[in-house]
């Protein structure tokens, strides 16, 4: 490798960690992230790499051929599901592993992936609506229930994205949008648009409930990442509790009214 003299190992580790961090932010499993960082370090000629990562924190130490060690940590604050970005990060790391290129070049590509503009999320909104409508039927609702769920998904989506941008406590805004969605479901049934408020609600619940997070936590625990899996599991349960609190308010209130 003739580029060896030019590679700054500290920067190389920094790049590998940033790729790993971006992957966690897109919703990758921990063992995939750890493997990616190890593979990148290995591709740049490191002798040994030790990494420990949970969903909110990463530590790595790598040793070069002279026995010098480099250590870095990363804190991950928020994560969501972004499959297209995850795919791009994956192909970037594959490309780096296949032919270790200049660090700056790779860094530029990483920045391009991370700061890629996401236009107003019409497709995400549409996805929300379709999924909500489909799951209302999946759980046994009528066409009318599905249509009501379809419309309420717009409100859920707008509330979630707008409040999220203001940096409000995640549990609070989840509960708030759940309460609004639940209220709307009862109002829709009252005016005759929909038959079963609980089935209208379940369509919208599927959008915000961290079901995939629950499955991923089980997967991680079975893979041996018990620590990360436990954190993910607890977070999923807490978010589910806040959703239940949000929906409980209209259910108990309108139940008392006899709607």
């Amino acid at each position, binding site marked *: 490798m003739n580029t060896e003299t030019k590679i700054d190992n500290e920067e190389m580790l920094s790049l590998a960690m940033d790729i790993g961090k971006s992957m966690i932010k897109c919703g990758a499993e921990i063992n995939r992230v750890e493997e990616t960082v190890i593979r990148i370090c290995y591709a740049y000629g490191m002798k040994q790499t030790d990494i420990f990562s949970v969903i909110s924190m990463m530590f790595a130490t790598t040793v070069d051929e002279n026995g010098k060690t480099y250590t870095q940590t990363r804190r991950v604050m928020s994560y969501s599901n972004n*499959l*297209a970005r995850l795919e791009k990060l994956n192909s970037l790391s594959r490309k780096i592993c296949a032919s270790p290129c200049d660090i700056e070049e790779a860094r530029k590509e990483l920045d391009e992936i991370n700061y890629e503009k996401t236009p107003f999320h019409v497709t*995400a909104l549409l996805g929300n609506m379709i*999924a909500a409508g*489909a799951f209302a039927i999946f759980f046994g609702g009528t066409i009318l229930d599905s249509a009501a769920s379809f419309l309420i998904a717009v409100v859920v989506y707008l509330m979630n994205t707008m409040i999220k941008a203001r940096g409000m406590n995640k549990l609070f805004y989840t509960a708030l949008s759940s309460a609004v969605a639940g209220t709307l479901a009862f109002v829709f049934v009252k005016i005759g648009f929909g038959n079963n408020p609980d089935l209208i609600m379940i369509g919208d*619940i599927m959008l915000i409930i961290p079901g995939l997070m629950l499955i991923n936590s089980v997967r991680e625990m079975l893979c041996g990442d018990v620590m990360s899996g436990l954190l993910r599991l607890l977070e999923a*349960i807490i978010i589910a509790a806040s959703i239940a609190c949000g929906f409980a308010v209209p259910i108990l209130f309108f139940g008392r009214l006899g709607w």
Partner: protein
Amino acid sequence: MDIKQAIIIVLSGFVGSIGFSLLFRMNKQKIIFAAIGGGLTCLVYVVAFNFSEKSFFQNLFPALFATAYSEILARLTKSPSTPYIAISIIPLVPGSKLYYTMYYLITDNDLAFKEYFLETLRIAGGLGVGIILVSVIIREINYHKFKHIYDME
């Protein structure tokens, strides 16, 4: 489960997968494959549902299928399998069960809470074990390719 119900589950699972693949910002050309995976997984679920009454096994077999389908598709389209697995499995994810668990917890319904809690664990366990089983087999097949990396540890 009668045939009409089965068709509804498969179709709505398919449409729901399309919705979630848009929501998770999946690559546009791959949405249709992932959504078909979601529909087929529901089909396997319906078959498994009629074979066994145990919810662990009802979910284990669809998860095995979804992971195998995703891994094959990932090889064919030269992309990672994670997005395909996520979308194929999403109709079976126990989101509603998890919600009811927490709902009964905060509304003092202990009996229903226990029932839904255990059900959630069984389904999540079944899906998790199904995914892991296939992943382990794939890793064994690929072992010689990445041997140097596994040996570093």
